[in-house]
């Protein structure tokens, strides 16, 4: 927990703005969630396994005396599992008034993605996911960042099909790459 980065302290010092995103990587794809929703980012730590819980639940961790459920982003969206390594991070995010943890491969940075750089995705490209999961795609230089609605991805009641996110990534890459005359992302 020595590595914990407390974003909330910054938030109090200077208001985190709507268009600031925390960018993280899962299986080579960059995703963004609104930075104002993030409480802190922790290195991997001991997580108590919960028997009989949904498969995407990694377990429960002790966050300074509070019990916090931890979701594994890979398992949540049907990517193959990966051993945790030194880059693995737990993003602690506020959901329905409680902190919730999400395990991702790598946490990159907090960046500003201004409105004009956010491209809306035609619904057909994301039709395999429940509506509203993806709020847009941030196009920054050569990067393509899928912007997610934090609450929707944590909501138990609309779990997408396991492979849906992969389809969406393919589809989004094609749509965006075709629609704007940019070189396709690596």
């Amino acid at each position, binding site marked *: 927990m020595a590595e914990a980065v407390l974003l909330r302290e910054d938030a109090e010092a200077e208001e985190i703005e709507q268009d600031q995103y925390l960018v993280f990587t899962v299986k080579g794809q960059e995703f963004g969630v609104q930075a104002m929703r993030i409480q802190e980012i922790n290195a991997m730590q001991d997580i108590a396994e*919960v*028997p009989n819980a949904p498969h995407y639940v990694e377990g429960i961790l002790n966050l300074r005396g509070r019990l916090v459920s931890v979701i594994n982003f890979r398992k949540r969206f049907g990517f193959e599992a990966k051993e945790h390594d030194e880059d693995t991070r737990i993003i602690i995010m506020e959901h329905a008034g409680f902190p919730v943890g999400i395990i991702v491969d790598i946490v990159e940075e907090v960046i500003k993605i201004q409105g004009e750089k956010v491209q809306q995705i035609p619904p057909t490209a994301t039709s395999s996911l429940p509506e509203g999961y993806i709020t847009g795609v941030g196009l920054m230089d050569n990067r393509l960042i899928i912007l997610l609605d934090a609450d929707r991805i944590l909501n138990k009641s609309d779990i997408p099909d396991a492979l849906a996110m992969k389809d969406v990534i393919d589809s989004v890459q094609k749509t965006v790459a075709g629609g704007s005359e940019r070189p396709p992302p690596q």
Partner: protein
Amino acid sequence: MSEDGDDAYKIDLTQFLQDYLADAREGFQEAFDALLALDREPERAEFLDEVFRVMHTLKSSSTMLEFTEIAEAAHMTEDLLDGLKSHMPLEKETVDLLIEAVEKIEGMVRLRAHGKADESAFRDVADRMRGIVSIGLPPGERHRVPEGVRPGKSAATRRAADISLEKVATVRVHTNLLDNLFNMVGELIITKNRIDNIVQDIERKDLKTAISDMRRIIDVLQENVSVARMVPVDEIFQKFPRMVRELARERGRDVDLLVEGNEIEIDKALIDAIGEPLIHMLRNAVDHGIEPPDERLRLGKEGRGSIRLAASRTESHILIDVEDDGCGIDAANIKSLAVEKGFVSHEDANSMRERDALNLLFRPGFSSVSNVTDVSGRGVGLDVVLTSARKMGGLVEIATKPGKGTRFTLKLPLTTSIIQTLMVASGGSVFAIPSDMVLETTDISPGDIKEVGGDRVMNMAGRVIPFMRLDSLLNARNITGGISGSVVIIQMDDRLVALGVDEVLNQMENIIKPFDPIARNFRGFSGGIIMGDGRVALLLDVPSLIHVDALRAEGF
């Protein structure tokens, strides 16, 4: 607390309003109590005086705050009360009108609490009052306060007059502050457990003494903070007489609610949680326990039924009884209905003990089966009662005699957040079991376990009880599958279950940490514990884990 210090004038007014509201709330409760007493004994005029006093006090404090519509309504009610003294004993309808009037005024006060006012709210009641006695004296005219009635003072006057004389023995504390204190004590206990862990191998007498002193201080601190969180059950009980009266009227029953033990104190976290199950139990008693008056008379009972709502405490539990003197429950009816609806087989029903038959009532879906109320005399929502009781770490018991009545008992632990737990290792993880469910622990060898019809059982002092391994119940990854290790004998009601674990670790006092909304959906666990080394151990919700209902059906 910076927002508290910016505007002294505003705060003063808010404080004044708070006092007004608190006094009013207390007054309404007294008025309702008096009116309900009057409902039982309509010839006793002193109950009218009680209500009069409350109205009088409310009138003056409302005038002071310029809540004129409330002052006027209180004034009219005073007139009515005055006039009614020559009409004793009162008609039931008149008592109803009085209750309605006080309820209306209570609603008007509530509006004011939100900064709103309704000038016309009382008009309809006032019209009906005029039909009984003449009311509406000139507003300036002062009422003669009945003899022996102490004129009330508003909170403000009282404060000014008495503050220099009385020593402050109590202070109001925000519940958030109490919660924080309580959580900090929890942290302290966790830290203490951690220190215990670290120092157990260090042989230093002075260190041991210091730690045992610290332990004692923490115990006292914990006890005091727990006591500070206690509130009398009356906070919730006081709502019930009116509710039961209303229900009884709707259902054409005549019912007295006798409340006992309303001074018993319970943790404030429980106060809100017991409301819903108690409402269910009381409604159930009115709906399906108490017979209609004519039927009661025919049966040689008093026409007016009674429901006893009683709180009491034992060394480890709070008991809340809801007991009616109604028709009781016939276990045979329950059984035949359960068979009819496919809940149990005919053979199982025949061999079923009465107690288990009664427990069928708590099965989800059983009580909502159509016609159940007519056949069994029992009905809706008992599974809800059981679920809420279990969430609080408690249970529900039934005792009944057909024709005589039924008693439901809600049995709750004294405190919910800090409990003794037995720590066990199973399938590679550590779990906590509430110690009050554990009868004993013992080592086993394969010879102790027998297979009977596909189920494993063990012999426990001459009694055959079901045996199951915790790791297989939990579908743990490292199931040892064997029958070595230890068993924890779990007691629920009078039912015993042997739970096989890899190892029984130790017993310790722990603070139960609540789950977040995601974890609340995990079946089989009701919270977690942070162990001395900082790791999380899950608290087993044993009844839901071992499917108690299924055991019942199997005759255990």
